[in-house]
């Protein structure tokens, strides 16, 4: 068949259609650095490069979710991750605190109820101020920002397409890929049409109501946790284990606590179909699930189904093949050397898309900053990915740094590690008669190395605040003896 081409229509497209993209002349690049992705890693790198008077561009674009959600500059953490998550977790904690307060003498006659819209509007307002703040910072530091989808089309060249479909080409001496990830869908009928993900939850314009959370990741458990804390009927459907990759002893304690506090768990089932029973905001959805251990089929009705089964890197549609950047075909992750360089020398990558690196905002920021300092300021420091502390903000918070018990046993041998542990009862929980045997702390020590503390785990209120200091101590080579000789602060949870 014959197709008529209107070649005058789009001269920029013509470059692509008629032949290979011409190799730009070195030293005549549009920019010193183009960063693809304006999230934690990308923005940190861009701002750092501007400090050294480099000509920098940031391309950031959010492809709307199947439900139509989108957001501003700042990436996952700011818009649909850490920030709104912690705020909503806090909203749930405040609900608990209100209940506790009665035992401490506060009297209020009205029934305390939660309003989803009030909370969501406040959270979104704050996020909006962060989006704006980033734009002001970039503009102030003369970093060019375009709200456009960046993809490689040839050596040193990217095409940026904005939401109106207008395409522009830019060249740069170096690139940093920091495109992050997006939630995975189930791949079953009804998933994209009816289910939401964390990308939609934090700006949902109606209360989710009775919710089924599919998944056992920290995203699943954190969301299930705060939704239940706000008073909603929540069920978590788990395919196998909770918090894969985390210390399983701690993971099970988290699950037990959530179960005892009103979260339903359906274990060893996966959804095979999601249907709409009734339209609405929220409507009613029917979920059919199959057992992973047999043939049993179950059905359930929920107002909202939240999928939290994993996140996939945004590396498949950014033209990496056009510039020869190798990715792990199975996972989509990009392997880099210890200087965050891909197999293509002028292309680097930071953040969640990296293979075998922790998916955390502070890691991406640190990696981005140090990378740029090495590129433009003659620094040599590489990003240290070891002993990075983390916290899971489930209703009972879990802070950790270093090895899990399983990983320590595997690496050093069971006979070479010693585990010290203790339950504790936060003083603040005594008066309101809250659980006295749920909070828990353990450290894992390497007997062969002076009983060096190689793993720190704490389950209890303010776990993140507690863990941060211990992470610094572990970085300095904390031993059990040093820990023992450190006098505790009283009365706080951390003294345990």
């Amino acid at each position: 068949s014959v197709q008529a081409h209107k070649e005058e229509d789009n001269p920029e497209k013509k470059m692509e259609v008629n032949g290979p993209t011409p190799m730009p002349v070195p030293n005549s690049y549009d920019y010193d650095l183009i960063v693809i992705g304006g999230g934690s890693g990308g923005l940190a790198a861009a701002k750092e490069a501007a400090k050294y008077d480099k000509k920098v561009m940031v391309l950031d674009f959010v492809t709307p979710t199947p439900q139509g959600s989108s957001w501003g500059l700042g990436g996952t953490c700011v818009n649909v991750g850490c920030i709104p998550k912690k705020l909503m977790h806090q909203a749930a904690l405040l609900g608990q605190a209100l209940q506790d307060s009665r035992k401490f003498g506060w009297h209020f006659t009205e029934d305390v109820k939660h309003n989803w819209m009030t909370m969501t509007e406040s959270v979104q307002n704050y996020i909006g101020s962060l989006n704006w703040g980033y734009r002001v910072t970039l503009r102030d530091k003369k970093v060019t920002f375009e709200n456009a989808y960046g993809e490689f089309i040839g050596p040193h060249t990217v095409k940026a397409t904005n939401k109106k479909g207008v395409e522009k080409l830019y060249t740069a001496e170096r690139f940093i890929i920091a495109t992050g990830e997006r939630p995975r869908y189930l791949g079953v009928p009804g998933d994209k049409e009816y289910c939401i993900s964390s990308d939609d939850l934090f700006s949902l314009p109606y209360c989710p109501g009775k919710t089924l959370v599919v998944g056992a990741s920290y995203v699943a458990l954190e969301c299930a946790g705060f939704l239940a804390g706000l008073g909603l009927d929540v069920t978590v459907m788990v395919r196998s284990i909770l918090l894969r990759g985390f210390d399983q002893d701690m993971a099970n304690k988290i699950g037990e606590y959530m179960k005892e506090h009103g979260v339903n768990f359906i274990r060893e089932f996966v959804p095979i179909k999601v249907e709409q029973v009734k339209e609405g905001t929220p409507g009613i959805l029917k979920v059919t699930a199959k057992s992973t251990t047999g043939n049993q089929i179950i059905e359930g009705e929920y107002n909202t189904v939240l999928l939290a089964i994993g996140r996939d890197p945004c590396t498949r549609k950014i033209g990496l093949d056009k510039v020869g950047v190798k990715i792990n075909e199975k996972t989509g992750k990009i392997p880099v050397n210890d200087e965050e360089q891909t197999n293509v020398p002028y292309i680097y990558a930071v953040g969640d898309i990296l293979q075998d690196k922790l998916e955390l905002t502070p890691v991406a920021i640190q990696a981005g900053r140090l990378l740029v300092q090495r590129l433009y300021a003659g620094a040599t420091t590489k990003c240290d990915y070891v002993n990075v502390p983390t916290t899971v903000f489930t209703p009972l918070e879990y802070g950790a740094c270093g090895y899990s018990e399983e990983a320590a046993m595997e690496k050093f041998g069971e006979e070479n590690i010693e585990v010290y542990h203790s339950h504790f009862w936060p003083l603040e929980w005594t008066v309101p008669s809250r659980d006295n045997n749920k909070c828990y702390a353990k450290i894992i020590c390497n007997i062969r190395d002076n009983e060096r503390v190689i793993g720190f785990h704490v389950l209890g209120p303010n776990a993140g605040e507690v863990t941060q200091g211990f992470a610094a101590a572990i970085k300095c080579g904390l031993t059990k003896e040093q820990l023992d000789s450190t006098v505790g602060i009283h009365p706080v949870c951390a003294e345990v």
Partner: protein
Amino acid sequence: MGWEEVQVRGYPEFVRTVQGYHGRPIFALFCGDKDAEGRSWCPDCVTAEPVVRKELHNLPDESIFIYCLVGDRAYWKDPNNEFRKNLKLTGVPTLLKYGTPQKLVEEECFKAELVRMLFTED
């Protein structure tokens, strides 16, 4: 139709004015009061005003630009004044796009680039 400027003084007049223009994009510049010679007690406001005025032609059509004098220095320093309490203003000059989290505070208002970004971008 281009943009319109409205000058107001004090919080109640500001609120009344905003309510009257519901539905149109509203930008507001808050400055300290001016004396009989037309000089403000707030030196940063003196610097910022010409920068902002120079960018006004970039305002989107149908916009309202409210030039608001907040009060005298004593009123402004009071941590409970209505602008601080209700509009969450933290300093003068403040230039903001009403109903959004977008604003520029103090020295940010000296930068034409940032003012232009506030007026022209979403």
